[in-house]
């Protein structure tokens, strides 16, 4: 049995008015779930339950003002509650988490299994619409066996008909889809429901966060505005990997943060941008804006979104400086402490999906920029060099560019330049 007391919501506060109980005696309450409300000086405060259990006793009624630390209620742990309300009988056995209030979502109506029909197909039936696209194999099987696919029920994604469905249909082991009379098209794409699905709400509704909405808008806008093309180049990162392996401990000791592959790529990209400034441009109506500064946006994954803080004048920094900026921006991005000027003004972006194990991806351009470089995972692979097999550290670099402004030849020259810098890396970083 746990006592719940009137909390002290501030230094000068000696009493509080309990304005409302949010739980009734006998009701189950989870730890941290709002239990009651108090009011002090035009402030209403929800007080969460200190523990999980059953609210067994309410000692202070709503409307009463009591001194802080006064016991206002008692919570018993689970089953043994003297439940006054007969309805709220304590759950027997290990109490399952309180059933989530059935969020009133119009769950797709559970579809009854299609009525079994005798195998004689109604020849008149207009070939009912089949769900989803058909694979060439399924078409071929249907043709060869003279099967009307409209009479086969699909078990694949979205009701798609699979090879197994056709086989089952031929062997007659599966009820055929009811041949639909002309007037009634199938109501919704329905795959054969897996057996014994619970009847609980099938959808949980959660509003999009502001950040999510903005990301969504930007992504779609970017896809609409730019002609996205992605080109992928394989880069031998062995020299960089060896350098990193050799110096990373000392680097960590000296600077207090780790050394990753990313600053090398940023540095190489800056050098390539200097050779091909069109990659650092943007389109403004019928003009091309060439940006004289090279400001590299670095995509940082957040818990439920992403942000692209910018390393300004990245071409003026060495590997140490770049790594320092990356670590600092990423940390502050995650704690939401970036300043507005640190997320604007980017002229080119880099996204490091390799850190999540991706080999290569096709990133979306960060408008109004015209290119984004994606860095895939660096992996040791066997490669053929002068007809001998060697082990090398290889990464795939994917450049998505805006074909409105940049042609494939230029994009590939740019990538070759990045590759050349990385493969020929000799400079020490310490």
């Amino acid at each position, binding site marked *: 049995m746990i006592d719940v007391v009137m909390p002290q919501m501030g230094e000068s*506060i000696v009493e509080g008015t309990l304005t409302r109980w949010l739980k009734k005696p006998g009701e189950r309450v989870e730890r941290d779930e709002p239990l009651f409300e108090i009011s002090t000086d035009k402030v209403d405060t929800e007080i969460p339950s200190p523990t999980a259990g059953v609210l067994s006793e309410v000692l202070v009624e709503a409307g009463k003002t009591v001194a802080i630390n006064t016991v206002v209620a008692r919570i018993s742990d689970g089953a043994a509650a003297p439940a006054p309300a007969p309805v709220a009988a304590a759950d027997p056995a290990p109490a399952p988490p309180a059933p989530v209030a059935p969020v009133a979502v119009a769950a797709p109506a559970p579809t009854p299994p299609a009525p079994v029909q005798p195998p004689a197909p109604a020849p008149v039936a207009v070939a009912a619409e089949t769900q989803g696209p058909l694979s060439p194999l399924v078409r071929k099987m249907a043709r060869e066996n003279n099967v009307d696919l409209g009479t086969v029920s699909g078990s694949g994604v979205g009701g798609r008909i699979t090879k197994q469905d056709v086989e089952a249909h031929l062997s007659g082991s599966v009820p055929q889809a009811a041949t639909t009379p002309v007037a009634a098209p199938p109501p919704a794409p329905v795959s054969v429901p897996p057996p014994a699905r619970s009847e609980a709400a099938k959808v949980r509704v959660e509003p999009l966060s502001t950040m999510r909405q903005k990301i969504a808008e930007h992504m779609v806008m970017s896809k609409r505005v730019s002609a996205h093309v992605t080109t992928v180049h394989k880069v031998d990162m062995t020299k960089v990997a060896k350098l990193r392996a050799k110096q990373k401990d000392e680097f960590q000791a000296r600077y207090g943060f780790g050394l990753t592959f990313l600053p090398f790529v940023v540095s190489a990209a800056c050098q390539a941008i200097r050779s091909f400034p069109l990659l650092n441009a943007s389109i403004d109506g019928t003009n091309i804006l060439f940006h004289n500064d090279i400001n590299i946006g670095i995509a940082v994954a957040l818990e439920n979104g992403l*942000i692209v803080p910018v390393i300004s004048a990245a071409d003026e920094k060495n590997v140490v400086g770049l790594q320092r900026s990356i670590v600092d921006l990423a940390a502050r991005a995650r704690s939401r402490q970036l300043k507005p000027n640190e997320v604007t003004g980017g002229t080119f972006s880099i996204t490091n999906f390799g850190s999540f194990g991706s080999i290569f991806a096709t990133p979306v351009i960060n408008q109004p920029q015209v290119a984004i470089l994606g860095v895939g995972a660096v992996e040791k692979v066997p490669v053929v060099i002068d007809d001998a097999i060697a082990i090398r550290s290889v990464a795939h670099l994917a450049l998505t560019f805006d074909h409105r402004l940049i042609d494939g030849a230029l994009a590939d020259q740019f990538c070759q330049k990045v590759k050349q810098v990385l493969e020929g890396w000799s400079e020490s970083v310490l």
Partner: protein
Amino acid sequence: MHNLEVRHLGRMGFGEAYALQCQLVDQRKQSLIPDQLLLVEHPHTVTMGRNGHEENILASPEVLEKTGIAFHQTDRGGDVTYHGPGQIIGYGIIDLRDWKRDVVAYVRGLEEVVIRTLAEFGIEGTRVDNCTGVWVNGKKIAAIGVHISRWVTSHGFALNLDTDLNYFQYIVPCGLTKPVTSFRDLGSEASREAVEKALVRHMSEVYSLSPVEPALTMESA
């Protein structure tokens, strides 16, 4: 110093602004966003706090409706109040664990923000014992009502800039039969923009926050 995201929402219905507040409060509790200050102007609305008394609404619901005044029950502290054009509403969504775990200090802070802002425009605002809000010569210029859940605040203050004070006749502001006033009523021609700027500055100072533009967002895959 923590960030304070300042959102200028312009004219927005009470219900819509409330939904936005709830969403932001939720995100703040999960530390997905920094502290927030929402500045907004509501159309004619009468709202009632948790401890509100219907008898403090002088006009019947029908009269309110006919006059085009919306009515909302809310979860803030305090009694009934009026919001409308010419008022600057400030909603603060602040995690008090990062400041002081003290709800009364938070309310005194809001009063301080308003008092310092008034001072910039040559108006002397004061506190009145047991009457939360900011007063000028016995007339109320700013009302305050706050809700707190897991130390995250919502709701805030309503400051009368050039509010049509006649609308207050439909209610007894905050249950007190005391008169109300506004910048204009006191002869100040201060612009909304200038007052909002001052409010942001003092809000940041009082709660040791640094104001930033909202939702940095951004993109790329």
